[in-house]
C-alpha cells in the first residue's frame, strides 16, 4: 500500500489528556499532522537517506539528519480557551494544527 500522504488528522480528547498539565474535563478536537512527504523529497533527501544508512558511518560521523521533508503544521489554531476543574480560565496558543504541509 502506498504510504498515506501528509494530512490533517483529528482526535477528540479532554484537556487533561493533552499532557500539558491542565486539569479540565472539557473536551476538544485536537488536530495534528501525520503522513509521508515522499513526493516532496529532493536529491538532498535521497543522499541523506544513503548517508544515514551507510555513508556517515564510513566517514565516522554520527550526525542525526532528517532524510525527508517533515509533515508539520503550516498554520496553527491561534488559541484554545477553557475552564479547568477549579473553574479557572486558561488560554493555550498554537496547540492545534490548522493545516499541514511538507
Amino acid at each position, binding site marked *: 500500500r*502506498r*504510504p498515506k500522504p501528509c494530512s490533517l488528522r483529528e482526535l477528540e480528547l479532554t484537556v487533561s489528556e493533552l499532557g500539558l498539565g491542565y486539569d479540565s474535563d472539557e473536551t476538544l478536537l485536537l488536530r495534528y499532522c501525520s503522513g509521508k512527504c515522499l513526493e516532496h523529497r529532493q*536529491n538532498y533527501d*535521497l543522499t541523506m537517506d544513503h548517508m544515514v544508512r551507510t555513508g556517515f558511518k564510513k566517514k565516522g560521523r554520527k550526525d542525526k539528519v532528517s532524510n525527508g521533508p517533515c509533515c508539520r503544521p503550516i498554520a496553527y489554531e491561534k488559541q484554545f480557551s477553557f475552564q479547568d476543574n477549579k473553574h479557572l480560565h486558561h488560554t493555550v496558543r498554537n496547540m492545534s494544527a490548522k493545516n499541514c504541509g511538507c
Partner: protein
Amino acid sequence: ATGLYFPQKEYFETVYVGQVAGTPILQVHAMLDSNSEQPRYYLCRTSSTIRHSSWFHLDVKTGILSLNKTLEENDFALSNQPSWSVKKLVLLAMVSKKPQCKNPTRITLDFVNATLPHCAQTDLKELCFPHRDTSNPHIMENRFPGALRQLRRLTRLHVCPNYTVSYHVESDTPAPFAVDENTTELVVTAPLDREESECYRLLLVCTVRTETFITKLDASLDVFVNDEDDNAPYVNGTDTADIIISFNRTKDGSFGALFVFDRDLTPIFPIDQPYNKYVWTLLNNDTWINETFDIKGTFSEKKAAVGGIRETVHDYQLVLKRNLVVTENRTVQLDFMVNDTTYPGLEGKVLLHFNVIILPVHIRFNNVTHMFTLTRRASLYAQVGRVCVENCQQFDGFRVTYRLEVPDKNASVEVQSCYTAIGITQAPDEMWGLLYVNDTEALRRPECEDLQYIVVAQEEHTQLEASTQIHIILDAEANKASQESQRFLSCSANRRRGDCESVRGLGATTGRCQWRQGSEKGISENYSTCSPDLRTCPDSFCDAVESKDPSICPQDCTKETVTGGHERGLRNGIQAGYGTCYCYSERCFCEKEDIEEAICDDMCKTI
C-alpha cells in the same frame, strides 16, 4: 583574368638608423596576366602608412623600394609603438595606378635603432637571404614566364664589396624555374599547370666567393600554383539515374545521385564567391514537373588518385518540392543542364537525366483477420495491440488515420454498448493505430462476449479507405472480473514487487501491475520499476496511449525533474535510473532499495 598581380603577398626587410637616401631596400614583383600589360608600381597612400610612407620611394618601373631620405634617430622616436629597440613600419605597394589600394602587397620593415652591421659583423646567411622569411609566392597557372622574386638582399649589396654573391635554383622534380644571372631574379620559365602540380619545392643555392673561400648556403622555397577555371566538367560513368518513388514521397525527400567531376578547385571561402560556380537548369517545361521536383547540388573536394592534386566532385540529387498524393502514378524523365559558369570554353555544360517512376500507394490491410486476446480484468488504457495497413512503417509524406466501427449497426442497444470497451488512437508521427481499453465496465459485462470490430483506415488527402475485421477474444469469466474495484492508481507509485503485483494499475493489460527487477549496479536502463505493461513501459518512448494520462507510464512520459541518480530520455521520461524508479504522478524518484523488501522502519510499524 585577374590582371597584374603580386605573386608574393608580404615582404620583410630591416632598415637601420643612418641608412642614406637612395639606399635600395627590396624589390617587389608583379606578374602579368595578359601579354600587353606593363606593371606600374606605386606606394599606397592610406591613413595607416601616411606617417612614414614619405620616407620611401618605389620605382614605378622596376618595383625597387629605396629610401627617400636618410633615416635619423628622431625618425625612430616619431613612431610611438611600444617596443624599445625595433619598430615596425608597414607600407602597401600596388601595381597600376588606381584611386584606391586594391590587392596590395604588404611590406613590413623592422626599423632598428642602430646602424647597419659592417661586413665583419654580417653573417654570410644575412648576405644571401632576407632576415625573416618572406611568404611563399603564388603564381597563377597558364600565365606567362617572368620574374617573381629578387633573390639578392639589396640592403646588403655594398656591405662586403669584395664578396661576389650568385644564385642558382635546384629541385628534385623537374620545375620550370631558373635564376637570371644578370638581375639575380628568380624566374618562372614557362606557364604552369595546377592540375599537373599544385606546388614546386625549390632549393635556392647562394654561392659566396671571396679570394680565400667559397661558401654555399641554401634555403628551400615553396612556390604555389594558383588555380583558374581551365577544366570543363565531365561525367565519369553514367549521366542517367533511375529513381522509383513509392512509400516515401515526402516533401524535401531526396532521391538518386549523379556525379559531375571537375579537375579545378571550388573554394568554399568566402561563402558566396563566384569562382568555378556551378548552376543547373531544368530543361523540362512541364509545369507538373517544375512544381513537383527540384535538384539539390552539393560539392566536395577530393584528391586525385595520381599525384594527390585537389579536384571537385559535384553531387546532384532529385528533391521533392511537395508531398505526393498516394494515387500519383506516373513516369517522367527529367533533363537538367549543369553549367560551369566560369569555364571559358564551350564544353562547360553537362546534360544529366533522372528517369523517375512514381508508383501509387495502395491503402489496404493484408487479408488476415486480426485476433487479439484480452483479459476482462484489463485496466483502463490497457494496450490491446496495433493495427497497421500494409507497408505502413515505410510511409512518409502522407497520413493514414484509423477508426473503429461496429460491424452490425442494427444490433441491440445492449450489444452496441459493449463496443465502448475498446478504443483506437494514434500519435501524430506514427503510422499505426493503437487499440486500448476504453471502458472497463463494458469489458466486464457478461453479455459483452464477442468483440468484433471493423477497423477503417483512411488516407487523409485522398480519403481512400480500407477496412479489416478484428476480433478481440476475452478470457476470464465476466462476473469474477467485475468484483474487483474499479479504482486504478498509477503502477509507477509502487516501489516493491509485493505492492506492485498486488495492485490494479492504470493501463495494466493483465489487470495487475508488472514488476521489473533490475540487476545492474549503477545507473542502468534496466532499472527496477512497476509497470502496467513491460512490453511498452518503460521503453523510453511515450506512445499515443501512454500520453493520454500522465499516470499510465510516467517512466516514459514525465517532463518533471527526476530526483536521484538517472539519465533523462531524449524528449522526456527516464532513460536510465539507479536502483528502483517510482513516481508520484509525474514526480519521479530513482533510489536504491537496499533490501528487496524495504526496511520497515518504525514509521511503517505504527501505521
